[in-house]
């Protein structure tokens, strides 16, 4: 049974938007409806946006009216830095229960539920196995509010699956995400001049590239795979290895005892270290990703490649700043584009025809995993639209490794000879001005 009519909750979150974008590219999907309490943050072509929170009576009416057969819940907050404990609980636990209530019941049209969860479900402690499989539970009960909420939300989903055997439920537990686009607190940590680590600890870290997150959600949705799946890229790196790949330094400024106090002091300086992150900085975490791979999913990036991709982006970021205009949702414009008889080609469709869009086609992804190495990922949306004359003056402000990264990107994309020549010249000058 393929999914045809999809409801994406949390459309305005990064993942909701990215997923809707990916689903739009798939012809089989008839309808995509996105709900959120805030305006969407990505430009979408045919996704219908309804501004509604997680009130289950309202959601229920939407589900019934649109005969939704698949619900994808992407709104889980997995970083305790982004919201207060109260709001997180409201969103993660109460919100999940409301959405489940809106999908369940004997007369519901919903047949598929995809729930985006997090590897924080497993926590991070000294008694952990080196690789968590989906069947394992955390060795100790959760301690931080966020972890408690995630465990509780998952329990609600499991409960829902038991009570509604006709609905096939998939739950995806994602490792820490890295990528050029998505902002996470780990990325904020890596962007510091020196990365603070706990003295005497070199934890194991596993990441997953942002594109793989979207691809995994789409894969599970298309292939109809009930069950729990870990989503984490191949390869578990030591933190010092990660920092090395990013070309950064580490600073063992956090003491092994009284780490919380030191973290509080760092927080004063503007470095946000969540309790979950402190645990990970001490004990690390590894996931067994083989169950999802056995279903035919192919990861685009290994952990190492995801880290390298981020490193390249971080080097390019200083000159790319402001190149892309942020998208702003305007209801009237979106209404016009969707409903007016005068619209012939949606701007996004034209973009895609030009081959510049970074839309992800999940089916194509699974078939040709190795066509685009990590280095070729667009460093920043909008770079490819810059003219050669506009790029040249920017080169002088770049470090040599940034230039090399830029050169690789340019070669794999437009390969304009004048730009390549300019980069080579800048490199010959030793980079930087």
């Amino acid at each position, binding site marked *: 049974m393929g999914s045809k009519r999809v409801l994406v909750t949390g459309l305005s979150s990064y993942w909701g938007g990215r997923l809707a974008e990916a689903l739009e590219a798939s012809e089989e999907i008839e309808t995509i409806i996105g709900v959120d309490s805030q305006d969407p943050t990505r430009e979408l072509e045919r996704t219908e946006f309804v501004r509604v929170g997680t009130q289950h009576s309202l959601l229920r009416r939407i589900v019934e009216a649109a005969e939704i057969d698949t619900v994808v819940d992407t709104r889980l907050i997995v970083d305790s830095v982004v919201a207060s404990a109260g709001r997180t609980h409201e969103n993660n636990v109460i919100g999940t229960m409301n959405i489940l209530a809106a999908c369940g019941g004997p007369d519901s049209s919903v047949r598929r539920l995809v729930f985006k969860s997090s590897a924080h479900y497993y926590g991070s402690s000294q008694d952990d196995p080196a690789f968590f499989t989906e069947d394992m539970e955390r060795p100790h009960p959760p301690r931080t509010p966020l972890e408690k909420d995630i465990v509780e939300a998952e329990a609600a989903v499991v409960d829902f699956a038991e009570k509604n055997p006709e609905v096939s439920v998939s739950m995806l537990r994602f490792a820490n995400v890295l990528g050029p686009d998505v902002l996470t607190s780990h990325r904020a940590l890596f962007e510091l001049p020196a990365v603070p680590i706990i003295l005497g600890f*070199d934890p*194991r870290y596993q990441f997953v590239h942002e594109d793989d997150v979207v691809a995994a959600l789409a894969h599970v949705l298309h292939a109809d795979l009930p069950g729990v799946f870990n989503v984490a890229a191949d390869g578990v790196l030591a933190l010092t290895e990660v920092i090395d790949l990013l070309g950064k330094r580490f600073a063992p400024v956090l003491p092994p005892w009284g780490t919380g106090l030191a973290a509080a002091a760092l927080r004063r300086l503007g470095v946000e270290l969540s309790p979950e992150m402190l645990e990970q900085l001490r004990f690390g975490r590894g996931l067994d990703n083989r169950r999802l791979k056995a279903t035919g999913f192919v990861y685009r990036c290994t952990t190492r490649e995801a880290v390298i991709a981020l490193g390249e982006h971080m080097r390019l970021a200083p000159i790319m700043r402001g190149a892309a205009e942020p998208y702003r949702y305007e209801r009237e414009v979106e209404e016009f584009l969707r409903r007016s008889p005068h619209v012939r080609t949606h701007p996004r469709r034209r973009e895609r025809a030009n081959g510049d869009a970074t839309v992800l086609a999940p089916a194509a992804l699974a078939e040709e995993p190795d066509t685009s190495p990590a280095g070729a990922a667009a460093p920043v949306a909008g770079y490819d639209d810059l003219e050669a004359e506009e790029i040249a003056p920017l080169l002088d402000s770049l470090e040599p490794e940034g230039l090399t990264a830029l050169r690789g990107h340019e070669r794999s994309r437009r390969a304009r000879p004048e730009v390549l020549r300019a980069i080579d010249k800048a490199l010959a000058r030793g980079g930087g001005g």
Partner: protein
Amino acid sequence: MPPRTRTDALTPDGPAAGSGGASVALEDLRRHLPGLEPERRLTDWGRSERVERLVDRTVADFLYHLWFRCEVEGIENVPSAGGALLVSNHAGALPPDAPMIAKALREEHPRARSLNVAVEPVFKAYPGLSMLLPKVGCVAAHPANLQRLLHDEEALVLTFPEGRKGPRKLYKDRYRLRRFGHGEFVASALRADVPIVPVCVVGAEEAAPIFARLDLLKRLTGSLRLPVVPNFPHLGPLAVAGYLPAKFRIRFLEPVQVDAAPGDRGAVQTATEEVRARVQETLFEMVGARDSVWLG
């Protein structure tokens, strides 16, 4: 402590209902083990060939050849391919037996197989140790870790079933084995379907005299628990200075293949006792045959 399994509605009929995945997934997951990228310096377990080689060439080499003058028998009992669980007696405050067994395998075994040492997970809470032990091939003794190493990666794993009780025993009790836990190691070997190779080490008991001090320290602080791990790479030359030059003899016994279900407690307990008895007997025989503690 076996991993508790979830009894939820999602997992049992999970992927089976979808694409016929579950049964395939269960037997064939080994196919999906990630390979190691050539540029990587550490394995997914955090093991570093560089650090290992450094320790091997310096401290381990010195201890093995000059200090303990290790003699090895029965190396042919360690299979050249496939996983195997090595089970050894354990002694000394900073037990030198694990690194010597690892070194023996590298030196004497025709395939120079590398060894993973299962150690108490508590090491992960100690700064420094938590960083260094994985780099030289130690893993936390978790059933899931053993399963992955033995079955999926077909590696050699050394475990000390006496656990913390081994190095804690008094000098007067030397070479008298403690209880072999609850037989978790037999269950692990059964689950992974690998042979158990008992290993006897003579010499370690006399080599680590810090033992007495550890007891005093324990009484003074009341809480200090020294990790049951070979931590000479951590202390470097200091640890060498702490060892007395006892003569080491390492004997690998014939592999034991147990035929039972991992859940069969009775059979597991019987096999555990059998392995323990063989190690104990051989130990007594080896100690009885030696003329001198220092010269062998």
